[in-house]
C-alpha cells in the first residue's frame, strides 16, 4: 500500500477505464492538490491514462465526470486532503 500524506486523497476509477488499464487499481491513494495534478499522477503511473481523462483544450473530457464531494469538478478544482474522488464515465457517452 502506498504511504499516505496529509495531501492524499482516495481515487475511484471506472470499469471502462480499468478495461483499458487492467493493471490499474480500482481504488488508490494519490497525493494531488487539484484535479489537473491528479490526472498527471494517474498518467505517470499508467502512461496514456491522462489523455483518456483530459483533452487538449485542456479540460476534463466532455463525457468524463470527476466528482468530489458530490460536485462535478474541473481541472483547477482543489482537492481537500482526505477527499474521495470518483472518476465516472458519463451516461451520455455510452
Amino acid at each position, binding site marked *: 500500500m502506498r504511504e499516505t500524506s496529509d495531501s492524499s486523497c482516495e481515487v475511484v476509477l471506472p470499469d*471502462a*477505464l480499468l*478495461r*483499458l488499464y487492467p493493471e490499474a487499481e480500482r481504488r488508490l491513494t494519490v497525493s494531488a492538490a487539484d484535479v489537473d495534478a491528479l490526472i498527471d499522477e494517474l498518467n505517470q503511473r499508467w502512461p*496514456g491514462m491522462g*489523455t*483518456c*481523462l483530459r*483533452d*487538449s*483544450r*485542456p*479540460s476534463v*473530457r*466532455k*463525457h*468524463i465526470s470527476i466528482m468530489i464531494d458530490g460536485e462535478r469538478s474541473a481541472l483547477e478544482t482543489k482537492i481537500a486532503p482526505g477527499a474521495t474522488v470518483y472518476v465516472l*464515465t*458519463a451516461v*451520455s*457517452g*455510452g
Partner: protein
Amino acid sequence: MAKRVILLIGTKKGTFIAESDEGRREWSLKGPFCDAWPINHVIGDAATGTIYAAGGNEWFGPSVWKSHDLGETWTRSGNGFNYPEGEDPVKSAWSLAKSHGRLHVGVEPAGLFVSGDDGEKFEHVESLRAHPSRETWVPGAGGLILHSIVPHPDEPDQLWVAISTAGVFHTADGGKMFEARNKGTRAGFMPEGMQYPETGQCVHCIVMAAGRPDRLYQQNHTGMYRCDDGGEQWVSIEEGLPSEFGFPAAAHPHDADTVYFIPLNGAIEGRYVPDGKAAVWRSRDAGDTWTALRNGLPQENAFFGVLRQAMATDNLDQAGIYFGTNTGTLYGSRDEGDTWGVVAQHLPVIHSVETMVIDA
C-alpha cells in the same frame, strides 16, 4: 504459395475480422475487438501482418488500436492527438494510411496526424489546418471529418487527403504545404453561380487507380468524378449512373480503368439503394460507361446505405470486391462483382471494409 484473405471490418461496436482462403467461398468471423469502441477504419499492412484500427470513444477520445497477431491481442494509443490549447479537441480518429514507413491518421474535427513509430505516438501535420480555407470548413452529416488519405505509392512526399466538407487537398512536399484540388467538382448544394469554389466541396471518398498515381476517382455529395492529373482538373463521370449521390468508391487492384461505385437514391431522399434494389455499379472504361452488378444482391425491400469507407477490393488475380451496409451485412464477390454472396450479417453498423492478403 497459398493465401489467406482477411477482411477488416470497422463497425459502430468494434472491429471484426473475416477470413477465407483464395477460393473465398467460406468465411469465418471473429470479433468484436477494440473493446467494442466505435471504429471508423481498419487497415492491414500485408508486409508485416499488422492491423491498425482507428476510432474514438465518447469517454476517452481518439485512439488507434494495433494488433500484430490478426486480432488476438491489441494495444491502443491516443498519444499525441492534440490540437493547440483552446481549440476544439480531437474527438475521434477516422481514417488510416500506411506508406513509406509512416502511419497517417485523419481525425474529427478535420486534421491530419502522422506516426513515425508505427502508431505509438502521433504528431499533428499543422500545415493542413493552416490552409487559408480553414475558416470555411463545415461539418457534413458525419461531422467535420478527414476521411480519405491517399499516399503516392512511389513518392513519399506526395499525399492526397479529403475532408467533408472542405474538399480535396494535396501536398507535394511531405506535408509542409497543402493545396486545394477541387477544380471541376461541383458544390451542388450552393447557390447558382457559386457551385465551383476553390474549396468547400463535400467530397465523400477518393481512391487511386491501380498503377496510375495521377488518376483518382471521387464520389462526391454531388457527382462522381475522375482526374488524370493528380487532382488538378476533375471531370464528371456520373452519366449513366442512377444518381449523383453515394459514399464509397473502390478502384480495381490491377486495372486503372475499372472502378466501382454504389449510388444511393439521393441526399434528401433517404440515402438508400435506389428503389430498394441493391447494385454495385462498375465501369471498365474509366467512367465512360457503367454496368449494374446485381446478381446475388437483394432486389426488393432493401433500404440500406453503404458508408464512405465501406467498400474495398482484394488484390488476387481475379479481384474480390466487398461492401458493408449500415444495416450490418457484409457482401462479397470473388469474381470482380459479377456475382455476390453474404460474407457476414447481423453486425453493427459497418463503417469501413478493407482487405489484407497474406501468405498462408
